[in-house]
């Protein structure tokens, strides 16, 4: 084995240990609820907790709503930028990157100032309106991931020629977008969707400050008051994230026509 290959293997080993040792530690700790033996008791407690089901249900619903709004907002925008306004691409990319550099807490305080119960648009005045506000804030939070995923997908296909081909065959914009463009960026949209899902499921700051019963605040609450259950919840969160990534791979592989041409 050459010296270069040995260093590569050592670096890989370091990376694997760095990632897996804390995870294995957490997993091992989550199984030690009963003194002297391993058990799934912490998981049973968590899964039987009505607040777990309520918060995960709430966060899942909001994640799906966020994905729907995100797709409706991002796909036509990225498509139009690619097709007609390529000069605006740097501006749009800058805007979509802002949620990565502006802390979530700044967004929430901005929302609270703008949409408080005595404002012109009192979105915090009722639970449903606050859910709507939280969904919109999640859309903002997931924008860098969703936009990049969709933009990458659009760059991989010849958007302009496909659009013109569809137009010459009589298709209107809605038909082009729904039947030609969207199916061909399906994998990219799914990647963005699952990343959005993973972000929303674990999000704490916005849900907590808007006082909504999401999974993130529940996770924090359990973590502050219990010993073994938070470890079990962390493992469950990881499992959900990994399942999302696995689904991207499975669904992406089956997309027709997205194999490299001969």
């Amino acid at each position: 084995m050459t010296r270069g290959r040995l260093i590569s293997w050592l670096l890989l080993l370091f990376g694997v240990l760095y990632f897996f040792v804390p995870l294995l530690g957490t997993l091992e700790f989550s199984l030690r609820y009963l003194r002297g033996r391993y058990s799934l008791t912490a998981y049973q407690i968590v899964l039987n907790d009505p607040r777990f089901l309520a918060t995960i249900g709430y966060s899942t619903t909001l994640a799906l709503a966020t994905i729907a709004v995100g797709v409706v907002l991002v796909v036509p925008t990225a498509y139009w930028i690619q097709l007609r306004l390529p000069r605006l691409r740097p501006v749009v990319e800058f805007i979509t990157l802002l949620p990565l550099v502006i802390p979530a807490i700044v967004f929430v305080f901005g929302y609270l100032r703008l949409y408080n119960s005595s404002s012109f648009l009192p979105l915090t005045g009722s639970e449903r309106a606050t859910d709507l506000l939280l969904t919109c804030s999640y859309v903002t939070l997931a924008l860098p991931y969703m936009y990049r995923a969709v933009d990458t997908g659009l760059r991989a296909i010849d958007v302009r020629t496909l659009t013109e081909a569809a137009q010459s065959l009589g298709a209107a914009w809605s038909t082009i977008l729904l039947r030609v463009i969207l199916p061909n960026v399906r994998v990219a949209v799914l990647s963005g969707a699952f990343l959005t899902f993973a972000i929303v499921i674990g999000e704490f700051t916005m849900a907590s400050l808007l006082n909504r019963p999401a999974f993130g605040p529940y996770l924090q609450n359990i973590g502050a008051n219990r010993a073994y259950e938070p470890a079990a919840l962390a493992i469950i969160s990881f499992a959900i994230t990994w399942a999302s990534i696995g689904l991207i791979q499975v669904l992406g592989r089956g997309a027709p026509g997205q194999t490299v041409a001969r």
Partner: protein
Amino acid sequence: MAFLEIANIQKRFALTTAVERVDLEVTRGEFVSFLGPSGCGKSTTLRIIAGFETPSAGAIRLDGVDITRRPPNQRHVGMVFQSYALFPNMTIAQNVGFGLKVAKKPAAEIARRVEEMLTLIKLPALGQRYPYQLSGGQQQRVALARALAIQPQVLLLDEPLSALDAKIRVALRNEIRSIQRKLDITTIYVTHDQEEALSLSDRIVVMNEGRVEQIGTPFEIYNAPATPFVAAFVGTLSILRGHVADPARGALVIDGQEVVAARGLEGARAGDACAVALRPEVVSLEGAAEDGNRMQGTVEDVNFLGSIVRVRVRFTDNTISLDTFNNPRLSPPQRGQPATVHFSRNAVLVLEAPTAG
């Protein structure tokens, strides 16, 4: 009456003029090619006809109706692209039937028409495949079938064979012409390949720098080029530079040897600088008619092109290319051997108006 009329079309982008006053009348069922180098405005003109570009001035009329401002999806023109542009998520049958489905035709009619089109392009068994499972030539035939399925008034082809290899290109261009004749569909074809344009077209529009240089049949374009650009761009040409010796006789001196041109030197003065052009097929190594020209030089290069051998002969500053048929019983000329080339006075094309040298 013209079926498709391109009237004084201009297209300006920020700082450049892509198309400058293009006028053309195309009759129903005619096959017209736009020929020119990259950036000459041929594709932009085609895109204006398709509706993908809006002209800065001028009008497009189809069957007497002004369609200049009509969106592309309402023009009823079929378009075939260089990159095929098949929808990757759809099967071949779905691709061919797409336009009909958009037009909300009944499913039975779509199925019948798709079958008809796939038979026309000789791919009846491939309807359930995806585009990536087909070769480039097959994909382009499907693209043609898709464009024809909607029974367009005009078929537009934008360099459809450029991405294919030589053999398939020739086969497919013959197929395109045969289908066009069979359906009698008005066709506009854009290409930078002169051989394609010459072999396919009823008429050719030669374009350069946004302007039309010449419109004519392939025979006219090749044999009577209207401008030096057309003469140089269409076909292979040897350009010889010299000066006028005796304008009354049409005599020039090129590298110290006299050449007589049948026409083109009217109004010139002795001593004027002058350029003439000769096609390779009008020059031979064997003796020509008595009134013909002959020049002596040295064989500089010999290119074996299969059925044809192209020989380049150098004089002093100028060279001339000529084609001879490959004769397996005779060995081709050798580099460095002396050669005498012959060509008739009528074959000499005076390219540039003589200017005082």
